[in-house]
């Protein structure tokens, strides 16, 4: 006798382990997916595969020794990580008996390298997002142009990814001879390049189908989940620490804050594309102002920081705008040359924590689209 049809067709939920080695997870992230056919019922992120306990290392190192370790958190935007840490230490030192005066030239160099690093980071996000969705070509364009930035950084700091360049009191090295010409040539080349990317991917019909209306998170939910940076701007809130709490010399530049409308994957992606244009504007203004103020000939690129750095005792929290959002450093100092505690508030960590609630009821392919759109770096999540 034949089985009843209903019994033969009975389906069951299946556990699908995505990662830790999976190209679309941007590092070593494991997702435990409960699937009913193609529909995701639950997505549980498992993190910690890259955990080195940066915070414990920091307790055993002097302040300048910590800077290269900050590089290794978000290795895609190392300059921005360094700047956040250095500014926090400088702010604490500024309240003590021996404040550090950062020379004007160093401030401009810091802004330029951070904005270049933001472009490099967004290029990687753009290229790999294309790969996640199934478009290979944009990746090649993105990496070709990112390479030029990495070469400039190599010339400047000696390293391509992990720079140890921004130091307490200034930067490690001056611009090499004629460096500003090469910088300007790159900016002139790159500015129209973003339009090329738009024609390649942004308005592609398949890409639009895969990203519009997917992974929607409104402004209130973004705030509840601690989302910052391009992710919250994609939901339509013009929230940028470079404008809200201007640090370094960001109040001297004229730039817009790109925002999205609906808070879906496409909006978050598009915010990053537009931010590259704004970063070019900032870098150009910084170069112009350096020329006007005669800073290119100035050889004063770092304050004289002699002896051991001993910030005053106390606790301080400061945050800066990295390509991925608000990166905060909580430093507890006991007055010695090593911090008693350093806590890092990672923007990717909070972004990923919302993934579980967002994924319920979507297709497996949509989960991939969401992960790409929040642009996570596992090195910063696991620390």
């Amino acid at each position: 006798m034949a089985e009843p049809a209903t019994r033969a067709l009975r389906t069951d939920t299946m556990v699908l382990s995505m990662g830790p080695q999976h190209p679309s997870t941007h590092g070593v992230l494991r997702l435990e997916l409960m699937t009913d056919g193609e529909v995701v019922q639950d997505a549980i992120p498992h993190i910690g595969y890259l955990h080195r306990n940066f915070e414990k290392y920091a307790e055993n190192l002097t302040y300048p020794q910590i800077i290269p370790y900050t590089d290794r958190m978000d290795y895609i935007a190392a300059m921005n990580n360094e700047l956040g840490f250095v500014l926090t230490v400088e702010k604490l030192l500024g309240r003590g008996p021996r404040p550090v005066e950062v020379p004007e030239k160093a401030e401009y160099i810091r802004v330029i390298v951070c904005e270049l690093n933001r472009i490099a980071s967004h290029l990687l996000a753009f290229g790999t997002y294309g790969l996640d969705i199934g478009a290979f070509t944009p990746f090649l364009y993105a990496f070709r142009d990112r390479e030029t930035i990495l070469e400039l950084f190599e010339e400047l700091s000696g390293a391509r990814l992990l720079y140890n360049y921004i130091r307490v009191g200034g930067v490690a090295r001056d611009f090499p001879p004629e460096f500003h010409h090469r910088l300007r040539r790159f900016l002139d080349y790159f500015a129209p390049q973003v339009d090329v990317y738009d024609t390649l991917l942004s308005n592609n019909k398949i890409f639009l189908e895969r990203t519009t209306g997917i992974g929607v998170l409104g402004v209130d939910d973004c705030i509840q989940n601690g989302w910052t940076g391009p992710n919250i701007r994609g939901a339509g809130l013009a929230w940028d620490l470079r404008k809200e709490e201007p640090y370094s010399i960001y109040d001297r530049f004229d730039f817009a804050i790109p925002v999205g409308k609906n808070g879906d994957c496409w909006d978050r992606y598009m915010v990053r594309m537009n931010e590259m244009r704004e970063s070019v504007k900032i870098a150009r203004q910084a170069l112009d102002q350096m020329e006007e103020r005669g800073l290119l000939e100035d050889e004063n690129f770092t304050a004289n920081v002699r002896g051991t750095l001993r910030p005053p005792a106390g606790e301080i929290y400061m945050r800066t705008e990295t390509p991925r959002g608000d990166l905060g450093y909580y430093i507890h100092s006991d007055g010695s040359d090593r911090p008693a505690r350093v806590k890092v508030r990672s923007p990717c960590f909070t972004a990923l924590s919302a993934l579980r609630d967002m994924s319920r009821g979507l297709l497996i392919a949509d989960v991939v689209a969401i992960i790409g759109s929040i642009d996570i770096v596992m090195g910063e999540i696991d620390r």
Partner: protein
Amino acid sequence: MTPEEIHDHLLDRFGGDVVTGLVQSDESDPKSPVIYDPAQSMIGASAIADVAMFCRDDDALRLDALMCLSALDRGAHLSVVYNLHSMAHGHVAALRVDVPRTAAVVPSVERVWTTASWHEREAHDLMGIAFSGHSDLRPLILPEGWEGYPLRKDYEAQEYYRGMKVPF
């Protein structure tokens, strides 16, 4: 509002039994100042969830964003510091809870700010603070079955983890 004004506002609402003090900078000796930026309102551990809910919902405070949740080891005490920010008013505040090292239990604030969920799991992993009422305190960053709390000052790594030598 400044963190000091927010502290007074909390003191008016909850009284001195709950809001037990304000930890702030002391710059009277310019040679060795003590800096707290922002100043921290000390809250009794058992009341933190109520105070947090008030901070989020009170119209004058509207501290709707939890910027950072840090766990610290201060020797006899462990403490949790909540750095808050108001998107509506643009002001910041910091709450602080101290608990004895031997009984480190703090009520969870994940129902107030969703983002606290993972921050508390991280603090539980690395500093060994138990958050009562938390929906899911499984290890997040450390592997399943890891012994000890690495960020405590007296931490010593275990010799073997599942038969593997540590450090390998």
